[in-house]
């Protein structure tokens, strides 16, 4: 997929009127996160990082968002969402059991843990989980498809799109207080918004985006 917003970096707005002090503090803390686990053990961490790579495959051309670490901190801080479907255990327990079950399925089918599988086999297992076609006893009554949609993919994707790199990728304006936006109509862009690369005009967009801030 070619970059739609080449060179657009939402972080260039950090010191502008688009970011207030509290936003800077929140995002600085997120960017300072170290890429190692506080909640998961080493084996769980390996499985989790491999799952993250498949749920959100990131381009090799830029620094990767530490998705697994963001998910790990959500568990470490036990930041729950205020509800769970009755068939799932609490968030931390659901994750622990789900990762263990995924590894058990992987060993049963391929003789190796999930982390050591080629990506095509990893995708097959994740698809089977999504389609509720896994049934090892390690699930202990937790429906694999519900775990997939309401915990695994849900938490991983929310972690990725909490990161400024992901905002830049999709051309999202990002934090916008107190400056906000002025131009609201179709195809109108404030000077502090991303420039989209029209076909054949990638360089022009790149140059323009280097000045967006």
């Amino acid at each position, binding site marked *: *997929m070619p970059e*739609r917003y080449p060179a657009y970096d939402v972080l260039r707005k950090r010191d502008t009127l*688009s*970011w*207030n002090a*509290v*936003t800077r*503090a*929140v*995002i600085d803390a*997120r960017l300072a996160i170290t890429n190692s686990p506080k909640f998961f053990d080493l084996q769980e961490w390996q499985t989790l990082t491999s799952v993250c790579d*498949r*749920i*959100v*495959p990131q381009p090799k051309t830029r620094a990767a968002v530490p998705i697994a670490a963001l998910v790990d901190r959500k568990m470490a801080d036990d*930041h*729950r*969402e*205020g*509800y*769970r*479907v*009755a068939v799932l255990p*609490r968030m931390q327990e659901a994750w622990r059991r789900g990762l263990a079950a995924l590894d058990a399925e992987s060993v049963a089918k391929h003789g190796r843990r999930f982390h050591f599988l080629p990506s095509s086999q990893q*995708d097959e297992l*994740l698809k089977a989980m*999504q389609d509720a076609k896994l049934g090892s006893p390690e699930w202990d009554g937790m429906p694999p498809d519900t775990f997939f*949609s*309401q915990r695994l*993919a*849900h938490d991983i*994707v*929310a972690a*990725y*799109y*909490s990161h400024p790199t*992901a*905002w830049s*990728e*999709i*051309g*999202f*304006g*990002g*934090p*916008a*207080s*107190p*400056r*906000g*936006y*002025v131009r*609201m*109509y*179709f*195809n*109108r*862009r404030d000077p502090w918004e*991303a420039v*989209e690369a029209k076909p054949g005009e990638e360089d022009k967009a790149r140059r323009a985006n280097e000045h967006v801030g």
Partner: protein
Amino acid sequence: MLDDALHAPRGKDGRAPDPLRVAGWMPMRRFRDDEEVDFAIVGTGAGGGTLAARLSEAGFSVIGFDAGAWWRPLEEFASDETHQAKLYWTDERICDGDNPLQLGSNNSGKSVGGSTVHFAMVSLRFRPEWFKSRSVLGYGVDWPLDWREMWNYYTEVEQALKMAGPLTYPWGPPRPRYPYRAHEINAAGWTLAQACEALGVEWTETPLATVSAPRGQSHPCIYRGFCVAGCSTNAKQSALITWIPRAVKAGTEIRDLAMIGRIETNDAGRVTGVHYQREGQWRFQRARNVVVAGYAIETPRLLLNSASSRYPDGLANSSGLVGRNLMVQTNQGVYGTMEDEIRWYKGPPSLTITEHWNYADTDKDFFGGYAVMSQGPLPISWAATHVGNRGLWGEALLREMDKYNHQTGFKICGEVLPQERNRVTLADEKDQYGLPIARVTFSLCDNDKALVKHSVAFMSRCLDAVGARDIWAEKDDTCHLNGTARMGDDPRSSVVNADCRSWDIPNLWICDGSVFPTVGGVNPSLTIQAIACRTADRIKAMASRGEL
């Protein structure tokens, strides 16, 4: 510092945080626990916050309790979906039924000001006929309220919050002009407008509780688009910055980070006050009247958790209806991709609306109605829609997210019918206060599904009419919470009367969305506030006649 408010209460020692000024404080009256106040109000959102202001302005002594924090938005609200989860009710709740609900950020606030701190500001009046939907439209149940009286209270709230809306409203009986002009429409809003023009149905600017011109300390809305993560500029006229400061000025004491565990009753069967936990201690506040205003899950949960030997099934529950008839609103979205750049993250999320299907009674194969509004989801919420509703992940997800700035789409606020099987009960699990948590059971009925199907077909035609490509519909989404302590004319079939006074216990009141007998196809906050204003006037009148 970013979440100080979550750890130590601020409303104490005779002062309260002023949410309109950085580091601001305002003086606040103090009551002792053993001082019997006229009203202890549980919850400070659209119901409780409004009622506290109106009752204290009428001279009653009032304490408002809230389990959540008392924020100063200007210095404590980030432009960030993740961080702002601090505004939501994230204590554990268990959901089941055929269509388990999503709570938390979707519909449940936990802060002084309640869910109005993170609501999308959409402020709509009920269609008059809905107050008599059983006798006039043939479904649901009648309200014990008269629409003409409600029309006046709607006006009061619209004026009190300086709502921004259109010059003339296309549907229903005449209403006064909105006090502030309508907001500028964004591109997503224009796609709905153009679609309605193409299909020959009326549309208008959505009436919103965010100011379009200066008002006191509130600057006009800057269109930053993080409304549902909390407004950091105080343009949004939430209860936190409107009713609560009014209440405090008029002598209400608000106690933040104060969780009510139980309402106490005496041998005579009357309530005597509330047990609440604050700063790790359980305390008891005496009160002549208790008002429960915790929204449609916490309200029945507290009534059920307050069961006693005299009231073994919970308080106000002789009808057996406390917790029953839980209603949400269906919230299906239909989305498509436009050639134009839309950039729907700019501005309040729902700037245009058509209430056509709320007011039309022909060409429908279901009871009830729905409003259709333009949308503007932020990235995490948009990605969650793809994951939860379409099962997308991997490259397929990234390809969809790449089109973010070219998306447009509409969502309904759709009526569901009241069903007794949809209910709030107590689970065995306990929360951090040691209280049994809520189990929330919800299933759509055939009529609800027919309404959704109709709306999806309509919204798909709308998107097609404006040239959207790759049109797709969500399979499951809901919003808002109502019912669970309905008002009515008969103690056998309702929990409270038209004045929000419980049939069983004359000094116990319920004032929030719980009292709705039906929900209609509009967002509930304006009606909750209008009912609170009416309840305050009724209490005033009853007090003057010695009937409290």
